[in-house]
């Protein structure tokens, strides 16, 4: 859904439904999605950390970093022992390296792999009505 940019983009009924879905947790947020590339965030990387759990303290520290957009814990596999994933966005290679350094220190020098984004082939929003 993309609202119309007019004075009254919602009906009362739509507003009620959106607020209800927010309360029920079906919707995380209602906000603008921007193109990070167009805003100058040209250096992006997925960092995979060799960690299977996350302490509350570290989770909160990571959550507070505005340059991290996504944090997931995943089931690792023996050939790929990385359980924690963070998506980082930076404006330059130098900035990205500094951010990775900061996180590495925060994590206590945890072993990690940097998966730099080379090309975006698909990026869509999840829509529960499609599947």
């Amino acid at each position, binding site marked *: 859904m993309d609202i119309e940019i007019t*004075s009254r983009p919602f009906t009362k009924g739509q507003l009620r439904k959106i607020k209800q879905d927010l309360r029920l947790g079906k919707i995380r947020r209602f906000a603008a999605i921007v193109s990070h590339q167009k805003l100058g965030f040209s250096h992006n990387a997925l960092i995979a950390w060799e960690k299977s759990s996350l302490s509350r303290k570290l989770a909160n520290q990571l959550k507070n970093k505005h340059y991290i957009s996504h944090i997931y814990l995943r089931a690792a596999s023996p050939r790929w022992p990385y359980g924690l994933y963070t998506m980082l966005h930076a404006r330059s290679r130098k900035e990205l390296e500094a951010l990775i350094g900061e996180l590495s220190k925060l994590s206590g020098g945890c072993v990690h792999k940097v998966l730099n984004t080379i090309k975006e082939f698909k990026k869509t929003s999840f*829509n529960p009505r499609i599947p």
Partner: protein
Amino acid sequence: MADLISKLDELDKKLVLLLQENFPLVLKPFEKLGRRLKLSEEEIISRIKRLKSLGIIKRIGPIHNPEASGFKRTLVGMSTPEDKLKKAVELINSFKEVTHNYLRKDDTFNLWWTLICPSQKRIKEIIRTIKNKSGIKAVVNLPTVKTVKIKTVFKI
């Protein structure tokens, strides 16, 4: 691309930040945004229209939480040789359950895509189909155990 920023003034930048945080859920949201930025409703509307035409704002709408409706997420890494890349990307992107697909720098797995499906069974089915049709067997499936953060607010 980066020089698009130079086309934005301080008010545009504030507006982009505000809009990413939370959109006012009221009958006249642009009027409300205007009060916060001390601009008229018309001014806010024309600025947002411009930000959309520049491609900076992609959309304004709900960010769904698939887990709340029972959906499962996973990230898949695939070791894709250069000569098979184009076909593999076409195949992977043809599934509507694939939400993201990126080429990344790594010597083990270079193609990374995400799936959101109603069940783990469907996830496995799609991965199996993609493996069979692409002939690429080196694949790692990393199901989400916990979503710790999804929030993208780009500060400019």
